[in-house]
């Protein structure tokens, strides 16, 4: 019999194939737990996976992700897949895609970058897809290695 580590959700979002050990970071960056929300959030870490060896899974009841949130997930878990569940059925499923440019999501790690001053401008980074995902500030050219630290 197939063992179910977390129960299915009725409505909401399933984020699967997260790099093992990253689920808590994803959850934190999605702002979970949300104030005043009592919807179920299930987190499974180091689940055995045929493709990945191990993976993390997050199931969030009653919530759809915004584009900005999907972009954040793509940066820290580039292999993740996202399924939107309605009435216990999957209505949409797909893998995250790394955007070429991200706007307003991260802060530049260069303290002397003009985007860290009080200017009316959102940060912009080119996403460099190498062995590790890195960001290059489109204002000052600084390479941001620690993406989790940089995400606003």
């Amino acid at each position, binding site marked *: 019999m197939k063992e179910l580590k977390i129960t299915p959700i009725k409505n909401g979002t399933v984020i699967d194939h997260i790099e093992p050990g990253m689920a808590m970071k994803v959850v934190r960056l999605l702002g979970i737990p949300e104030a005043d929300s009592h919807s179920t959030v299930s987190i499974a870490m180091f689940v055995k996976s045929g493709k990945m060896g191990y993976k993390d899974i997050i199931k969030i009841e009653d919530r759809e992700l915004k584009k900005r949130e999907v972009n954040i997930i793509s940066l820290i878990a580039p292999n993740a897949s996202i399924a939107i569940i309605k009435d216990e059925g999957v209505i949409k499923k797909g893998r995250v895609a790394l955007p070429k440019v991200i706007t307003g999501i991260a802060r*530049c790690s260069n303290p002397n970058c003009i985007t860290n001053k*009080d200017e*009316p401008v959102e940060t912009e980074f080119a996403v460099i897809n190498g062995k590790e995902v890195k960001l290059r500030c489109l204002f000052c050219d600084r390479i941001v290695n620690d993406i989790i630290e940089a995400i606003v």
Partner: protein
Amino acid sequence: MNFKGAHIVSARELDREDIDHILDLADDMIPIARGEKSSSLMKGKILATLFFEPSTRTRLSFESAILRLGGRFLGFADPGGTSVKKGETLADTIRMASAYSDLIVLRHPQEGSARLASRFSDVPVINAGDGAGQHPTQTLLDLLTIRRETGKIDGRKIALVGDLKYGRTVHSLTYALAKYDADITFVAPPSLQMPSEVLDLAQQMGAKTQRASTLEEVVSDADVIYVTRIQRERFPDAAEYQKVADVFKVNAALLEKAKKGAIVMHPLPRVHEIDPDVDETPYAAYFKQAFYGVPTRMALIGLVTGVLE
């Protein structure tokens, strides 16, 4: 590229064809820059020079360039006494200056400031140095100097000497030389060698590079010896600094081993890294280099305002 209305933020955004075109026009500007020929190319046009930090050569050469072309300039050489001191954002200062002028030249202590200015300006912005970031007109005048004083850039052996870690001019020049078939040697103490991210990107762009640790290794073979200042504050103590400063000093005795036709360049100001005894030798190209800033900036001013094509 179509220069009319373009912002010049980083030399990396210019391809080789663009650079060659700017240098060709700069060549044509030399008699005007020397005052041998008069010009009214920029008559009726206003250049805004916004210098948020001090600069002698860059500001004066931009002002000389616009005046020689028959235009005028307005602006400030120091933000004291302007609304910037009252806390005005750079974005607002740029919006205002762009309403008062036909193009803006910006020097600012923060990296990325020129890119930000380009987003808020209705007129072209030329970056005249953004903190430790980019200084594209310096790179262009360096290339003009190499081309005019040695005849070409392709195939030249260029030694970049001194503080290669923090020196923005050498980073930017390295990227630009990668677009030519030049052979670059980085000559620096290990603690001030070219950063790996600059080296990696330059090599991806096709640069031929190697490292050396003394001037003696390169002096007899180099066509260009490009010297930069090593700052005392980069070293833990004065003795350590002195040791390094002596090793990377260019003087007339060293240049006895240099090739005929080789040149010594420096973005200036120099302190002790080039001995004054070099000034009178045929190798000294650093004052000519400072002059080439004027025709180079004339060419750019003309191109981005659409007065030149």
